[in-house]
């Protein structure tokens, strides 16, 4: 039987994958994608519990998370474009002007 905890486990795994990608990759676009993975993991969790509790609150929350993800992706890619124009690079460890 597939219980809620199974979905939660999947959510956790996806979260970890996304975190690893966030911390490890040098390419900004891949990092943004990892962030999308994390957000999806959260969504899975929410929807699983929505089913568990028997109301739609979790799903509504997931809708909002999608909306936020959209906004964040748009703005993030805009930043990336501006950054690329200035620095000619999308490797994140080359963008360290705020270094000490």
């Amino acid at each position, binding site marked *: 039987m597939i219980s809620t905890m199974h979905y939660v486990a999947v959510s956790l795994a996806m979260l970890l994958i996304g*975190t690893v990608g*966030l*911390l490890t990759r040098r390419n900004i676009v891949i*990092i943004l994608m990892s962030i999308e993975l994390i957000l999806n993991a959260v969504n899975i969790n929410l929807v699983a519990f929505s089913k568990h509790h028997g109301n739609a609150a979790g799903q509504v929350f997931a809708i909002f998370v999608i909306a936020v993800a959209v906004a964040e992706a748009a703005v993030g890619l805009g930043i990336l474009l501006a950054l690329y124009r200035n620095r000619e690079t999308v490797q*994140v*460890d080359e*963008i*360290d*002007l*705020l*270094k*000490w």
Partner: protein
Amino acid sequence: MNFPHTFWLDTIWLIPVFPLVGAILMMLLGRYEFLDPQDECTALENHHHHDRGHDQDLRSPGGLRWAIGPLCSGFVLLSLLWSLGAVLAGRTEQILFTWVAGLPFPTFDGRPAVLAADWGYLLDPLSAVMILMVTGIGFLIHVYSIAYMEHDGGLYRYFGCLNLFVFFMLILVMANNYLLLFIGWEGVGLASYLLIGFYFKRKPASDAAMKAFLMNRLGDAGYLMALFFLLGIFGTLRFTAIEASAHPLLPWATLLLLVAATGKSAQIPLFTWLPDAMEGPTPVSALIHAATMVTAGVYLIVRSAPLFALTPEVGTLTATIGALTAVIAASIALVQHDIKKVLAYSTISQLGLMFIALGVGAYWAALFHVVTHAFFKAQLFLCAGSVIHSLDGEQDIRFMGGLRHRMPHTFRTMFIATLALAGWPGLAGFFSKDAILTSAWASSPALFGVGLLTALLTAFYMGRLLFLTFFSTYRGDVEIEESPKRMIIPLWVLSLGSIGAGWFASPFAAWLGATPEAHSWGVMAASSAVAIGGLGLAYHFYLSRPGTADRVESAAAPVAKLLRAAWYFDDLYEWAIVRGFARSGGAALSRLDQKIVDGGVNGVGWLTRQTGAVGRWADTWIIDGAVNLTALTVKLSSFPVRFLQTGFAQSYALVIVISLAALAGWYILRSA
């Protein structure tokens, strides 16, 4: 004055305050230009004998110089008026405040007593006489000084010290206990020192001031020891509280009081300071060394009369000392050439007469002579001052003469005073000397004889002084004119006293509560004869047969030499004390100076260097170290923190994840 009588008695504390105010004012304000613009130091060479052409007139007689003299004289006048009021009002004792709080101690007899003294004034006939005399004659001399010291610098110092002197003298005579009297005693010594050394730039003047002060100090030592004896015997120092009763140790107390009086009143052996004190300005000599300070010793003994009456041995000693002093001083006066020195020795001699009277128990007679002597001796000094002033500083009588016509007022007043001092019948000195001689006769013929001899010598040397100064022809070369009126008027006022004071002998004695000896016509005749005879002899020696003096002198050359050297007293002291102390003391002091004083100074220098080194070390290590430590701390503590700011977004994300792990871990632990 419609004040109630008690007003005057309640305000007797004001009497010393007025001159004190004057002294303080002079002390505080005197240095300022507006008061005395003259450079005082250049004018200090004034009034030095044989100093021709030193006309140190004021370069800029400006400011408020003219006000100093009248102001201070005004203060003394106020004291005089208050004294008159108080004396007419009656007698009183007024305690102002307790000054020395009680310290319990046992007397010699084992009675418990308390060492306490208060600052209080006693107004009884004795002190009444003294305050009237001090303020009266003090006032006249202040007025005289205004004109006399006109051309001098440092006027504020002069009048300030004069006022200070009057203040202390009033404290002395108004005190109601021995301790307060001592304050006045020391104070007049101080004022005398300041005034004798008025022309302090001259070495003789400052030396004389020192000599006077040191000799006084010897007397003061005696006074202090007497105080202890008095405390031990009676347990109290207040005059009204001492009940005179015989005590085995009482002679010591009175003896020591006699020592004190000897120092202050210039008796043998402590008299050599008085002739040297003539270095001061002449009005000072008149006030301090004729009328008031030197009579403080007499006052002390009269005040302690009940005690002296119980110790006849000390009385005998007093009379002996007085007799010796009288004769020796008179003999020295015979050969003096300086007007003021003649008068100085004359003062010493007259004080000797007073001590004779004290010694035989005729206290009122001594006091009477104090009063009359104050009049004519002050007058004599002021006349001498007038002469000196007119002669531009000349004081040697060998260079005077014939001043009778050029300075008529001075001559006349000096003449009156000379007669009074010599004891011309009818004048003041006659009566007071008569009182003394009468009591001396009643006690011991030897004393009477000495007194008579003194009177003869007195008449002789005063005559000599008068004739050489005012008669025959002028032997100097200075333009002479009579002194200004401001100086002459006090002379005439004093002569009133010289003439008339003598007639008040009986009321005086009665007021003091003493019974005078019965008049002896024999004594009167003897003293009159001696007075007239002495003057006549002087006339013969110096006027009618000039040259007689020189012949007699060469005939009795060794005697003359002895007299000229003042019986070698000064040389004795010089050899025994001064040289002795100087030699041994000087070497010791020099070693002291080198080892201890210089050592101390060097030690301080060494210490400063060491503390400087410590300071350097402290500065380098502690202060700079602290600063460096701060910088180092910042550097070290920022080291790990610095790396948080990588500018690297992923490391921030790392931190977020780490904190997530930490949070999870905390939850685990919580639920564990």
